[in-house]
């Protein structure tokens, strides 16, 4: 092989502390190196031309550039050598700037290190081989997991763009947490009034297929070609037939079913449509409360149903959908305040969560929009809000800020005053976080116009005194202990990752942080991509978010999908694992460890099995390569021989 080495001065960035001339001179002595020079700015246009000229004149078959980090300019140089007719993978970089010249001033030591790095790069290059990407067709259908506001936004954006969308929602209805809200900050507009039309849109768009009461069973495939199995959970109601008339609900004798939609504040019927505007507006039986399903004689709903939609024999059903991209918008769950023993550990009916209060405020809620306390239905007079319950508290494993509580407390306090002008509201807070457009003004209005009393300090204890709750805390601004006797305490429970986020991540093969929030590709520059190609994030599944941010992310993810779907094919990355079938012993360990399900069995004649890499699924991590005992599976461009070649240069 004829190798050329180009040592970059990078002005004085490198040449200042590395003798680049000497590095080039030494490089000329390495095996297969036929040309070596140093250059002022190798990445510049003339610098690249110099490489291309040398490739042509010297008949180079491989190029090493010793310069900055490959994370910086590897793509630049790969393009340059490609233009000169070399395969882009017949190129290696030695990082002698970030790893050498910038971290030490000892010219001699730096130069010797730079020489070593070039030697290693040359040694590796001698084992490089041209790699070629292939093209895979893109299935232009989108899967949206989660039908909250972020998912709805993403689905509608793509559907508007003419793409087929499949939406999967775990609950019986779409709308997510936003559907439960009364009003939204800072505009105090009605949540269901702004969300409702979008939900209807989802139902009406012909190119959106909605699976409510469904969950993701499994995902296989890769960008452009995912196969998704969806588990349609048993509803005991044939939704094709159900018209959502609600007759069954009225007659259902099981009246004490859990009312999940109302956060447990009311009671629902065993057969239920959670709220009047629900999309899809279909009834579903809660098997835990249904008399018929619990061996008692009933079947009232079946008798009453005008379309005979009730089916007690119904079973879960698995449907398969094929899509080309996936947007994950699984949202969040609320922190369970029961872990705070000092706040009653969930035992006091009048110490409630923010979302429960939201249902109390809501006209469609359990009390029809009248503020009453759960214990005895009385109108409260003194109401205390406590912020940061399950947020910014390392002691309960939630050190992060949930971002929305300060704002929703302010909103709820304002609404409380609107509903009950005679009431007094107190807010115990740590800091007020209100960095959005019109947000801080909103909080100020609560304090100034609505007379909500903000007390800076942490509540130490809540206990019952007679019919009322005593809230004991410190006012850290005044430096005094404060005790408020309240009729109702609202805890601003924080945001945590959605239940089952981890399991879904494993199915999607995306990573998640220690709190269960999904990891984006890059926190600044790739905020809605994941490291699994073709899977995008929107909304609070990635981290706590308010509605505008969630919607923005929904649209952002949608635009990523649209730019993907603008192509009929995608180019695969050739730096993937490759099986040498001759050496494969079919032990299946690679299949077992692959984080992406990118390896599968392939059957040869005579029933002999071999592992096979799906090049378009493989992300190139190399776990399989490290695991494979006979090293039959080799990660291209980081093969054993390539790494060994580098190591060998350092061995005595």
């Amino acid at each position, binding site marked *: 092989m004829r190798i050329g080495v180009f040592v970059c001065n990078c002005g004085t960035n490198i040449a200042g502390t590395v003798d680049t001339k000497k590095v080039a001179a030494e490089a000329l*002595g390495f095996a297969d190196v*036929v040309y070596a020079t140093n250059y002022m700015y190798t990445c510049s246009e003339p610098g690249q031309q110099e490489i291309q000229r040398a490739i042509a004149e010297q008949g180079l078959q491989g190029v090493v550039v010793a310069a900055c980090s490959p994370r910086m300019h590897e793509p630049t140089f790969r393009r340059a050598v490609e233009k000169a007719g070399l395969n882009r993978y017949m190129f290696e970089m030695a990082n002698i700037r970030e790893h050498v010249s910038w971290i030490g001033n000892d010219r001699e030591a730096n130069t010797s290190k730079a020489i070593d790095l070039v030697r290693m790069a040359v040694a590796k290059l001698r084992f490089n081989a041209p790699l070629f990407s292939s093209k895979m067709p893109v299935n232009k259908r989108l899967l949206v997991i989660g039908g909250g506001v972020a998912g709805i936004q993403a689905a509608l954006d793509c559907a508007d763009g003419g793409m087929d969308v499949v939406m999967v929602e775990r609950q019986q209805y779409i709308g997510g947490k936003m559907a439960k809200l009364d009003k939204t900050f800072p505009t105090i507009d009605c949540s269901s009034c702004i969300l409702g039309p979008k939900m209807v849109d989802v139902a009406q768009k012909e190119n959106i297929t909605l699976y409510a009461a469904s969950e993701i069973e499994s995902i296989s495939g890769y960008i452009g070609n995912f196969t998704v199995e969806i588990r349609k959970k048993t509803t005991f109601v044939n939704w094709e037939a159900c018209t959502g008339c609600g007759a069954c609900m009225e007659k259902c004798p099981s009246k004490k079913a859990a009312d999940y939609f109302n956060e447990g504040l009311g009671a629902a019927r065993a057969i239920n449509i959670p709220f009047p505007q629900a999309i899809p507006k279909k009834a579903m039986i809660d098997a835990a409360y249904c008399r018929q399903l619990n061996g008692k004689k009933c079947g009232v709903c079946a008798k009453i149903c005008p379309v005979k939609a009730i089916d007690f024999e119904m079973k879960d059903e698995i449907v398969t959908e094929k899509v080309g991209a996936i947007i994950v918008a699984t949202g969040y769950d609320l922190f369970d305040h029961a872990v705070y023993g000092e706040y009653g550990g969930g035992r006091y009916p009048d110490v409630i969560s923010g979302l429960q209060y939201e249902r109390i405020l809501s006209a469609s809620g359990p009390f029809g929009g009248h503020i009453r306390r759960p214990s005895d239905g009385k109108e409260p007079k003194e109401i205390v809000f406590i912020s940061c319950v399950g947020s910014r508290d390392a002691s309960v494993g939630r050190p992060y800020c949930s971002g929305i509580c300060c704002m929703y407390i302010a909103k709820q306090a304002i609404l409380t005053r609107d509903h009950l002008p005679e009431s007094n509201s107190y807010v115990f807070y740590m800091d007020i976080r209100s960095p959005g457009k019109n947000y801080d003004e909103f909080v100020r209005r609560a304090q100034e116009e609505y007379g909500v009393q903000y007390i800076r300090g942490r509540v130490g204890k809540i206990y019952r005194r007679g019919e009322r709750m005593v809230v004991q805390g410190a006012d850290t601004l005044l430096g005094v202990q404060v005790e408020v006797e309240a009729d109702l305490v609202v805890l601003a429970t924080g945001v945590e990752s959605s239940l089952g986020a981890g399991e879904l991540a494993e199915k999607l093969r995306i990573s998640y942080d220690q709190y269960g929030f999904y990891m984006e590709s890059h926190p600044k520059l790739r905020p809605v991509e994941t490291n699994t190609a073709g899977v995008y994030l929107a909304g609070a599944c990635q981290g706590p978010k308010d509605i505008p941010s969630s919607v923005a992310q929904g649209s952002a993810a949608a635009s990523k999908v649209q730019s993907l779907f603008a192509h009929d094919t995608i180019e695969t990355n050739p730096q993937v694992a490759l099986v040498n079938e001759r050496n494969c012993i079919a032990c299946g360990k690679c299949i077992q460890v692959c984080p992406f399900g990118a390896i599968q069995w392939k059957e040869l004649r005579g029933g002999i099995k071999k592992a096979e890499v799906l090049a378009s699924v493989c992300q190139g991590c190399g776990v399989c390569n490290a695991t494979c005992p006979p090293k039959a599976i080799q990660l291209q461009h980081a093969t054993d021989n390539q790494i060994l070649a580098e190591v060998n240069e350092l061995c005595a």
Partner: protein
Amino acid sequence: MAVKIFIAADRLDSVLEKLSTKIDLWIPALLKDDKSGPTGFVQYTPGITPAFDRQTTMPLKKLLLPQEETLLRFKYQKDPEGSLKTTIALDDPKEARPTLVFGARSCDVRALVTLDRVFANGPYVDPYYVQRRKNTLFATLVCGQTDSKCFCSSVGGGPADMEGSHLRIVRLEDGYLVEALSKDAQPLLADLAEAPDKSRDQLAAKLVKEASKRQVGDLDTKDCAPAFRNRFQQNDYWASMVSQCLSCGVCTYVCPTCYCFSITDETRNLEGERLRSWDSCMFYHYTLEASGHNPRPTKLERYRNRVGHKFSYIPERYEGLLGCCGCGRCIRSCPVNIDIRQVVGNLKENSNEQ
């Protein structure tokens, strides 16, 4: 000049030490601090434990055919034009140092007949081997410790066979009687020890006579070659003989006559060497071709080839010479106790059965 000496047992060490000043001396010795542990030939240094009382685990072939040796060295040199010029320096057979192997057995030395035929007698001559062979003398023990695995008499040798030996060692109760059999060996014995007294001399002669009459092994190797050819295609026969074989290289590495080798280049940057190293016909890679084709893909073909090589191919090629010295090492060291005598012996039994 003494042609016979007697070394008393308690003087063995000092005699060997003296001998080792005259010539590079190799003796069989323990390779591990365990009297039942593995043994092999090592260069004598004072203090090592000789192991004359049993056959060595490893044969002495490494003296003539080291497990690894450099055939040549090469170096690429750059010229100012940027192109590479090669210089190669032959690591030509270094002037081998005169060496004496003291305490080999007749089977060990007999094996050299096979090696000599292959390496030294054409059509091509291996200069590395020849150089060492010319400079090595053998003092051979008349063997009194044959066991149930030995079969030297079956392959043309015998416990007292001195073919290829330069000195004969007879082990007596109280020491060793060493006799020079060739002129070039005589000077070695000078000033080492006294000549033996008459009774010891007679006793030794008697022992040699007895030993040469002893028949070790009852394998009949006559007409092996045609029998082998007859059996060649009978896969069932070979399968039944070697289904327990592990395809390891023990039998070939402990075999004094197995000489097959590999040649590989080892290199570092611009310099490198071409190595010759022991290889084993029992290994899959031995015959694996770059195309992926392997003419001997399973242990069946490989073991068959090993047997064929020793008892059919070498005899056919080299005037009836056998490629086996009957030392029994392959039987003793085989992890699954395959007995080559059985495989060869059965060649002729009911060979037309199938």
